[in-house]
């Protein structure tokens, strides 16, 4: 798989202002139940001077996706462009992927008796699932397939400060690099979450 064609997310924590546009747009676009958060905005050290930062986080579509490795029923598959997807009709809702995931991306429906888990749900990078592209069945099970329509995933499209970047890894890194260079002050070389997801 060429690095060129690999799709990645990156959230610039110097830009993210915890406005929730990404997570609300995601839930709205894919018509998710309120208990499911495919994309979350987290804030660390809230209110503490000079220490607070916010980050939008969802499935990072890891290079060596741990979820795929631990799944007992092999419901995950990784597309050629690096997007990590799964087959909800194969998933047994065991939750192994949740334990393996460094980002808490896998979501499980919480209703029903004893909070019984249903099939796992997670960010698809707006790329749908294994069903027929843009079919109503796919939309019902996995939400919109914007990638197939040549559109940017909605979370990044609505980001109010352009903090959340998505796309071809080289392009993402180029946008970020330009920003960091012109900022002209000390800055971490590798963004948070990048290393766990992509290994370098």
């Amino acid at each position, binding site marked *: 798989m060429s690095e060129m064609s690999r799709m990645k997310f990156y959230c610039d924590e*110097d*830009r993210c*202002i*915890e*406005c*929730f*546009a990404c*997570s*609300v747009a995601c*839930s*709205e676009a894919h018509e998710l139940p*309120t208990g499911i958060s495919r994309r979350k905005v987290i804030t660390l050290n*809230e*209110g*503490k*001077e*000079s220490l*607070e*930062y*916010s980050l939008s986080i969802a499935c990072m579509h890891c290079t060596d996706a741990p979820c795929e490795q631990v799944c007992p029923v092999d419901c995950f598959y990784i597309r050629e462009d690096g997007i990590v997807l799964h087959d909800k009709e194969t998933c047994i809702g065991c939750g192994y992927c949740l334990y393996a995931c460094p980002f808490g991306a896998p979501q499980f429906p919480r209703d029903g008796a004893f909070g019984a888990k249903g099939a796992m749900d997670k960010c698809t990078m707006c790329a749908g699932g294994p069903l027929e592209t843009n079919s109503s069945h796919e939309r019902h099970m996995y939400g919109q397939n914007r990638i197939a329509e040549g559109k940017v995933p909605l979370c990044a499209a609505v980001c*109010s*400060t*352009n903090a959340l970047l998505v796309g071809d890894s080289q392009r993402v890194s180029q946008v970020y690099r330009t*920003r960091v260079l*012109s*900022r*002209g*002050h000390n800055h971490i070389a590798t963004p948070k979450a990048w290393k766990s997801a992509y290994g370098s």
Partner: protein
Amino acid sequence: MANTWGYGAMTNHFGDVVENSKAILMIGANSAVANPIGFKHFLQAKDRNNAKLIVVDPVYTKSAAKADHYLRIRTGTDVAFIYGLLHIIFKNGWEDKEFIDSRVYGMDGVRQEAEKWTPEETSDVTGIPAEQIIQLATLLAKTKPTTVVWALGITQHSTGTSNTRILPILQLVLGNMGKKGGGCNIIRGHDNVQGSTDMCCLADSLPGYYGLGEASWKYYAKAWGIDFNWLQGRFHSPKWMHEKGFSLAKWWQGVLQEEKTYSSSPIRALWVQGTGITSMAQTAKVQEALDKLDLLVIAEPFVNEAAVITSKKDDIYILPVGTQFETEGSVTATNRSSQWRSKVVDPLYESKTDHEVMFEFAKKFGFYDEYVKAMKMDIVDGEIKVVKKDYNWPDDASNEIARTVKTIGLGGWTAKRLREHQENWHLFDPITLRGYGKMKNQYYGLPWPSWDNNHPGSPVLYDVDTPVNKGGMGFRNRFGLEHDGVSQLADESISVKGSNIKGGYPEITKDNIEEVLKIKLTEDEKKKIGANWKVDLSGIIQEKCREKGVCVYGNAKARVKVWTFPDPIPKHREPIHSPRHDLVMKYPTYEDQTNNFRVDVRFKSEQQQQDWSKDFPTMLVTMRVVNLSGAGMLERTSKYLSHITPEMFAHINPELAAQHGLRDGDMMWLHSPQNTKIKVKAIYSHSVTPDRIALPYNFAGMMQGVDMSANYPEGTKPYAIGESSNTITNYGFDIITQIPEFNAGLCKIERA
């Protein structure tokens, strides 16, 4: 602002900040929450120019989290803080002397006042460490251009008018006005707030800031093609034509009449269209007044919770009105740019558009013909005439505005041009606003003033280095030609680029046009020309000025002394309910006020009634949350937005919470000096210090512990309801504008 240099609007624009600002002083604004997309531009300025972002706020906000410097100020001490900066700037000779001498009047008074505000005194009053004040003054003096950004944290105070004057004064002292990357960028909080302000949806002015004087009414009578006497006859008696109405802040006194009011009769009916009055200060008083009304009419897309917080059972009418997607026309952005919007769908179900509702009322009240007449008129050969039988909405409404509103230069805002700008978005640079191709030599949305049909718009106000016909101008000559024997016109050295007149000149009138422009008018022109540029429907004054590269409103000095105000030079005055009773005597508020907007207002008598800080020791700070705007009714009907803040809360420092035995998530009562209370959830947060709490104003549906859910019409109850912070905002109003004191008050915490 308008009293300083002519206009009270944002002087520059967001793209300009990205491109040119080297420092951004944000005070009394939390753009990261109130205008997230606007805030992106400040982050871009940081990224692209290494611009320094300085945030001054009582709370460590989301904007502060992105700042290079954060200064935690005590509420209601902004004037003192700016004087503290000015003290250091003057002391070191860092002021822009050339700018002050040539373009500013009255600076000596400011210099004198600033002398008192040593870093130590400023620090004691504001709570900001002296070193930080010195550091910031140094940074501002050495970093040009700096832009100053503010919003309602500055205006919504009993000293709001002084606050909005002291920041322009800072920019004048630093010489940052009329410059790219500088200016005073006041950010409007909602869509089209600038537009509704320009149209003066206010109690004290006609559209376009024309005031309520006889000359203004006569000008409008002419522009609307109706008889002045007919207009006058619509009033109870002629004198009411020139009296300010009740303000949005204190209209409820017109119903309750507890304080002395000055009106021909009490208010008996209220018609609310497009404003969330449940997020206004003194919500408990709003509720009492609603209960007492004979008639309440609400016209909005969502149920206005005014209908919910009242226990009134009859005579409430809720009219469904379409949203902006169901109508068409222009809106005005915070930077004075206009933008045309197309209709996406027809009004849904039985709803009507806003204007249809008003037209229907006008028909029933019997003045529809007069109401729409101007839309059938136009200027023909320098004179206004009826030119057609019927009007074409909304284009003719826009054209009427363009033809009539001279004061802020809307002459160029014809429907045709605004539509062209919308259709050619792609031909404008988002940073400079400059057009390409066929939109060349125009700025996007024709930021006003756009004096006439050929004017490109003015992206940066008061820029004398740009010719008038390309968007330049001096300060407005609005306050006479001289004061105390000193000329109010700009110095000889300040000529607007490309102008035929050297140095300052007065605003252009029928009487002075020949002398100032050195021209001769024909007899026909003399017959048609208006008395001055503001009321010249013929357009002759603008036409002649264009030829000479002259700005119709003159080229004058900005003034820092407003001789008609109670404080000609702004002064620090403690909030009405101050946590520092020891400072109340040193910096007292104003004397009580008689008849402003038809009602008396208590100042000193309220402030000095007792030491409020004894019984109400905690500072009360109100704030917005990002997922809710205004009264929040619209957003709280969205399950995903409600999910972010499912209930009303207050941010409380764990230290303060511990004093009251409150665990994170416990309920507490907050009591106000005017004996109101709300029950809210205590949420631990380090964004507030232990002397203050912060809470949002975007909830409604609960009043002083009482759940009003039963009052929602069936199927309209939002996902989240709660108490509004404004039920306990303290008494207090600005002495000029009467804007309520939302932002500096006190409260008492009690574990629930």
